[in-house]
C-alpha cells in the first residue's frame, strides 16, 4: 500500500483490514471459479425418502442392531489405543522434529493421507482386524502429535531452565524444568485428539471395521432408517457425554478392558506384508524396468487433471462456504445472544451438524438436489462451518462485553466480531487442509475428485494405481497446507490455557 494514496474502502494496513481483504479475496476467488463447478439441481421428489429418514430419526429402533454394545466398545477401544500409540510414537518424534527436515516431511506426508485411506491400505495386509483399525489412527496421529507437540514444546518458558545450576543433565532438565511447564497444554491437546479419534473410529466402520459406523453405514445405505437413527443418536450421545466417561482416571481401565474385545489378533504374515509393500504398491512396468510399459501405465490412470481440478475447486468452495456458515451460526451457541433455551438448542444444532458424518449429509442433499457438486459443497460447508462456529462461540464466551446497552446486531458487528475475526480466520485456514482431505470422501456423488478414483482403484484391486493417486493427494494436501499457512493470520495472540493455539483445535 503506498502512503500517498487516499485510503479506499479496504485499503490500509491495520490487522482487521488485512483480514477483511483476505476473506473477501477467498470469497471472490470462489465466486470467479464457481461457473466451472457443476451445480445443477435435478431432483423432482425427494420427500418420500426424506420422510422415511426423519421418521427413523424420531422413532429410533435401538434394538435393531445386533451386538451394539460390542460395536460401541470397539469404537472406543480403537480410538483410545489409536491415540495412545500415536502419543507413544509422536512424542519422541516431537523432540527431533525441529532438527530434521526429513522427519518434518515424513510427518506431513502421513498426516496428509486420510484415516480411511490408511485403513484401506492396511486392510490389504492385516485384514479386518484391530491392527488395521488402530494403525490407521496411530500412523497419521503420530505425525500430528509430532508436529503439534513440537509447536507446544517450542513455547516452553525458559525461566525454570535458566534457574537450574550448571551440570544438570539434559534428561533431568527436560523432565523437571521443561515438561511440567507445558504439561497442561500437551494433555489438553491429547484429549482433544481423542475426541477426534472417536469420530475417526466411527468412520472406520465405513470401510468395514466393526465399529458403530459399520452398522450405521449399512443401515443408512439400505434405508433401514429407524436403525440408522438409533445409531446416530448413540453416536451423538457418546460424543456429548465424553466429558463424563472420558475421565483421566477411568480411561486406563477402559483401555485395558477394551483389549479383551479387540481380538482375535491376526497372524501377521511376513510374506504377505512384503508382497504388498514391494510388489502390489508399485506399477508392474516400473518393477520390470520397462519404460515404455510405464508410459502405457500412466495412460491408464484416469483423467488426472480434472480430478485435481475438481478436488481443489471443491476444497475452495468448501472453505469459502464454511466461512459464511461459521459467521452466520456462531451466535447460536454464544452466551452473548439469546437466552438459555435458545443457546441450548443452538449448541445442539451445531453439535448435530459437526458430528454427523459428511457422507450422510451429502447423501441427504443428494436426494434433495440431485447429483452435482452442490450436495458436496453444502455438506462440507455445513459440517466444517458448524465446527468452526462452535469453537468461535467458545472464544466469544471468554470476552466480557464493554457495553450491555447495544442491540444484538451492533454487539455482533461492532463489539464481538472484530475481536473474534482473526481467530475465526485462523481456524478456517487450519481447516482448509482437512476440507481438501474430506473432498476425497464424496466420490459417491459421481464427482470425479481424486478420492473417487482412489476408491475405484481399491475396488478394482489396482493398488499400484491407488498408491500413486494417494501420493498425488498427499502432495496436494501438503501444498494447500503450506498455502494456508502463508495466509493464516499470524498476529492472533495465543489464548493461553485453551489448547495452546486457536487454530490447532480445528484440525480434525
Amino acid at each position: 500500500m503506498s502512503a500517498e494514496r487516499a485510503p479506499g474502502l479496504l485499503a490500509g494496513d491495520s490487522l482487521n483490514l488485512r483480514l477483511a481483504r483476505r476473506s473477501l479475496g477467498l470469497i471472490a476467488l470462489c465466486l470467479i471459479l464457481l461457473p466451472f463447478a457443476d451445480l445443477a439441481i435435478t431432483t423432482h421428489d425427494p420427500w418420500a425418502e426424506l420422510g422415511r429418514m426423519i421418521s427413523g430419526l424420531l422413532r429410533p429402533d435401538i434394538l435393531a442392531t445386533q451386538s451394539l454394545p460390542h460395536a460401541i466398545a470397539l469404537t472406543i477401544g480403537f480410538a483410545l489405543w489409536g491415540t495412545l500409540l500415536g502419543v507413544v510414537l509422536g512424542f519422541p518424534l516431537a523432540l527431533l522434529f525441529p532438527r530434521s527436515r526429513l522427519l518434518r516431511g515424513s510427518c506431513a506426508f502421513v498426516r496428509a493421507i486420510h484415516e480411511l485411506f490408511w485403513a484401506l491400505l492396511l486392510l490389504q495386509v492385516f485384514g479386518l482386524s484391530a491392527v488395521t483399525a488402530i494403525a490407521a489412527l496411530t500412523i497419521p496421529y503420530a505425525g500430528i502429535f509430532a508436529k503439534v507437540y513440537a509447536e507446544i514444546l517450542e513455547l516452553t518458558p525458559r525461566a525454570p531452565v535458566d534457574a537450574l545450576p550448571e551440570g544438570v543433565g539434559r534428561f533431568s532438565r527436560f523432565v523437571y524444568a521443561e515438561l511440567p511447564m507445558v504439561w497442561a497444554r500437551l494433555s489438553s491437546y491429547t484429549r482433544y485428539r481423542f475426541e477426534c479419534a472417536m469420530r475417526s473410529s466411527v468412520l472406520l466402520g465405513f470401510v468395514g471395521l466393526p465399529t458403530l459406523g459399520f452398522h450405521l453405514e449399512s443401515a443408512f445405505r439400505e434405508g433401514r432408517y429407524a436403525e440408522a437413527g438409533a445409531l446416530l443418536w448413540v453416536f451423538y450421545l457418546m460424543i456429548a457425554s465424553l466429558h463424563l466417561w472420558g475421565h483421566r482416571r477411568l480411561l486406563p481401565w477402559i483401555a485395558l478392558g477394551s483389549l479383551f474385545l479387540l481380538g482375535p489378533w491376526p497372524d501377521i504374515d511376513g510374506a504377505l506384508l512384503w508382497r504388498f509393500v514391494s510388489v502390489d504398491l508399485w506399477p508392474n512396468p516400473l518393477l520390470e524396468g520397462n519404460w515404455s510399459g510405464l508410459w502405457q501405465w500412466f495412460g491408464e490412470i484416469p483423467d488426472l487433471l480434472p480430478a485435481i481440478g475438481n478436488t481443489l475447486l471443491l476444497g475452495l468452495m468448501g472453505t469459502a462456504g464454511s466461512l459464511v456458515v461459521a459467521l452466520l451460526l456462531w451466535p447460536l451457541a454464544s452466551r452473548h445472544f439469546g437466552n438459555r433455551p435458545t443457546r441450548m438448542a443452538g449448541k445442539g444444532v451445531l453439535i448435530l451438524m459437526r458430528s454427523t458424518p459428511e457422507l450422510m449429509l451429502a447423501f441427504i442433499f443428494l436426494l434433495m438436489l440431485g447429483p452435482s457438486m452442490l450436495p458436496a459443497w453444502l455438506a462440507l460447508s455445513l459440517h466444517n462451518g458448524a465446527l468452526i462456529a462452535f469453537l468461535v462461540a467458545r472464544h466469544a464466551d471468554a470476552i466480557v462485553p464493554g457495553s450491555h446497552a447495544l442491540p444484538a446486531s451492533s454487539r455482533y458487528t461492532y463489539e464481538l466480531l472484530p475481536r473474534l475475526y482473526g481467530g475465526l480466520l485462523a481456524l478456517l485456514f487450519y481447516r482448509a487442509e482437512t476440507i481438501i482431505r474430506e473432498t476425497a470422501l464424496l466420490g459417491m456423488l459421481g464427482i470425479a475428485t481424486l478420492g473417487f478414483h482412489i476408491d475405484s482403484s481399491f475396488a478394482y484391486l489396482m493398488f499400484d494405481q491407488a498408491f500413486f493417486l494417494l501420493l498425488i493427494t498427499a502432495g496436494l494436501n501438503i501444498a494447500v497446507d503450506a498455502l494456508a499457512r502463508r495466509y493464516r493470520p499470524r498476529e492472533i495472540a495465543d489464548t493461553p490455557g485453551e489448547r495452546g493455539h486457536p487454530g490447532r483445535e480445528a484440525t480434525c
Partner: protein
Amino acid sequence: MRWLVACLLILVSTAATAETFRFTAIPDEDQSRLEERFDKVARYLEDQLGVTVEYVPVKSYSAAVSAFRNDQVQLAWFGGLTGVQARRLVPNSRALAQGQEDAEFRTYFIANHDSDVDTQGDDLPKNVQGKSFTFGAKTSTSGRLMPEYFIREQFGAPPKSLFSRVGFSGDHSRTIALVESGAYDLGAVNFKVWDAAVADGRVDTDKVDVIWKTPTYPDYQWTIRGDVDDRYGDGFTGKVRKALLDMHDPELLESFPRQGFIPADNDDYQPIEDVGEKLGLLR
C-alpha cells in the same frame, strides 16, 4: 503404563491360532441381522463338515476379495466379477456352486417416471441418451459390469459420453431410492433386489419402474481356496460342495436369497472375465 504394555503383550501372545474354517459373503442383499442369519449357515456347515466354522462379516466387495486373498476366509459367496478377481489372485481356487438363479441372472434398468423414457421395449430405449444414470457398487456384476457392457454394446459408446451424468450409488437399494426420488433419471439394479423391494412394498412403482431387462449372464457363486484339502483333510473341497448343494432349509437359503445351489466351475465365469477385461476392470 508399564503394566498396560505387559497386558498387551500377554494378549498378543495368547491369540488363538486354532484352525477354524471361515467364510464370508459379499454385502449385496439386506444386511439386517446379517450375523444372526449367517451364523445359522455357519452352524449348518459345522454339522456337515465336522470343523469349527465361522462367518466373517464384510462391508464392501473389495474387502471380501481381500479377506479371501489374505486367507482370512477360505470360502466366500462372491458376485460374478468379485469371484473372478478373487480366483485370479489366489491360484488353484475354484468356483464350487452357484444359486439356481445365478446361471441366468439379469440386470433391470429402472427409470423415474418423470424422466419420460419409453418403457419396456426389446432394447434399452433410444431416448435414455442425455439422461442422468447411476450404477450400483463399482465392482458389482449386476450393478456395474454387465449393465455397462450392454450399454456399450447397444450404443457403441461408454456410459460417460452417453449420459449427462454417471454416478455410483454403492448399493442396489440405494440405486432404487435415488431413482425413485428423481435424483437420477435412470439406474441399473440386481433383479433379485428389485423383485424383493417390490414384494415388500419398499418401492413406489408409480414413481419408478423397470424399462428394460438385460439378457441373462452368470453371477453369484461360492468360491473356495485351493489349499483347503491340505489343511482340513483330504476331500474337504468335495465335502464343502456337497454341503452347499444339500442345503435345502428355506431359512438358510433365504440369506442369499436363493432357491437352492447347483454345481458351478471356473469356466462358467469366462464370459464375466472377458467382459471385465474388456472394460478395464481386470488386468
